[in-house]
């Protein structure tokens, strides 16, 4: 069913384009785009085939349509991308973008059909590679800006006190007019918070943070006690490294550590 749908869809698109090439003057823009890439010396049916083939690049190769698993490699890592020139990175980026487009099309189609789509991790691998390319490009640009202007050339930002009175990091945005002349922006982005409501909110918020910390500490302590009662030979140094907040000397005085029995009294 999927295959049929895909073919139907592509042939429909091909028909649309064909019409635009040969008959319909409404599609002049498309005609230009398509004919630029086609050798016009070819006979008409060859052109159709060529357009079909090009459109089929939006989809996975038909061989993979009914597979349970599509074998593939890993993503590009940073070390491999750092040795590539800018134009190479540019090319790899567009190959990856095309692949991502294809994969997302396939995923969408299979979801629509309620079918199992093989190897969904391909999307993650492509996205991982694209993220790595962005990192490398950013590194190179930062090096240039550091040399030329002494700053990294990244989008600036600063810690601000927001409308709730909490500190948060906010990225700055480019404006044509300065801060003091931009009344509209200032009204839309109030900074800082004062008054009794703010005081009450902050008290509750701090209480929340404190309670979360306290509960976390108790949870850890109970977990450690249970671990120790289950595994008496456990290396305590490992636990001390993992839970530095817990005082291990007082743990064995807890009832939980002793367990549900009456100790022997001499």
């Amino acid at each position, binding site marked *: 069913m999927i295959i049929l749908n895909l073919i139907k869809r592509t042939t429909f698109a091909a028909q649309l384009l064909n019409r635009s090439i040969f008959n319909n003057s409404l599609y002049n823009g498309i005609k230009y785009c398509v004919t630029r890439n086609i050798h016009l010396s070819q006979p008409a049916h060859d052109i159709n085939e060529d357009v079909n083939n090009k459109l089929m690049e939006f989809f996975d190769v038909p061989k993979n349509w009914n597979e349970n698993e599509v074998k593939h490699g890993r993503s590009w890592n940073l070390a491999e991308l750092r040795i590539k020139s*800018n134009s190479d990175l540019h090319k790899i980026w567009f190959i990856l973008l095309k692949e991502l487009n294809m994969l997302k099309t396939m995923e969408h189609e299979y979801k629509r059909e309620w079918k199992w789509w093989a190897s969904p991790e391909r999307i*993650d691998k492509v996205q991982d590679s694209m993220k790595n390319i962005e990192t490398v490009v950013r590194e190179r640009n930062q090096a240039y800006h550091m040399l030329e202007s002494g700053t990294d050339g990244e989008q600036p930002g600063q810690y601000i006190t927001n409308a709730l009175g909490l500190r948060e990091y906010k990225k700055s945005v480019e404006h044509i007019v300065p801060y003091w002349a931009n009344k509209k922006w200032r009204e839309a982005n109030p900074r800082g918070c004062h008054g009794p409501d703010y005081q009450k909110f902050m008290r509750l918020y701090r209480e929340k943070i404190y309670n979360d910390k306290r509960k976390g500490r108790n949870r850890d302590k109970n977990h450690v006690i249970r671990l120790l009662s289950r595994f008496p030979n456990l290396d305590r140094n490992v636990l001390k490294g993992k839970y530095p907040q817990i005082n291990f000397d007082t743990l064995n005085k807890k009832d939980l550590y002793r367990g549900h029995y009456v100790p022997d009294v001499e």
Partner: protein
Amino acid sequence: MRITTILHAKRHNILEKVGELSKAFGNFPDSYVKRASEQVYWETPKAPQYTKAAIEKRNFRFTTNRPWTSQFRMQNMSNMKRKKVFVEPIENWGFFRGDRVEVLIGKDKGKQGIVNQVVQERNWVMVEGLNCHLRIVGKEKDYPGVVIRSEAPLLVTNQVALVDPTDLQATEVEWRFTEEGEKVRVSKRTGRIIPIPKANEETMDYKGKKLYMTREKDTDVDVAQEISFKPKLCTFEMDIMESMGIEEDRIPKKTFWY
């Protein structure tokens, strides 16, 4: 709901609980392992006015099924509440696929075998052909089913011991550094190095790194290793514009960042 509750909500990250060896065996990107194994029932929309909060499953029971599989999901359905499992924390993990180990408990006590699966989340190893039980699979009214022998997991802390390759006897193991700065496992009894086996390299895609078969969309090794980078005093965008013949001579107006 109080505003403080939303502000202080913290997302659960299942990746912290998945063992490094499991991840290495799957050979998947972390993002895939995360999205395949987590169970998010509702989350705040991805917009600046929302803090990141979600209703999701937090308590998972790790089993011999890998976290990204559908079997794992079936064993951790939203309506299932199972008793908490206490796992002894281990500082330096010392058991890998392909290791020769001796079983210390059960009916196969004293026998040696090869580790064929490691479940780091539960401190488990499976030893090939040892500590087995029989399972009946596919039993129906008119069909008796098929009997399968499958290995039961063994705890690495006190149920198996590594075997020293020099005298083929069980030994305790210590991690030490060689003079070259390499971290190795050393037998406490004989002081010999126990090398990490080749089978540890095995992933779901290949048996060993050298045995990997190049696929259709893979880049050739020569092409991938070719160094085409040449240092140049320009940004990425300037370089691409130059190669495409785009000239930019407009002078930007002064702008303000805030």
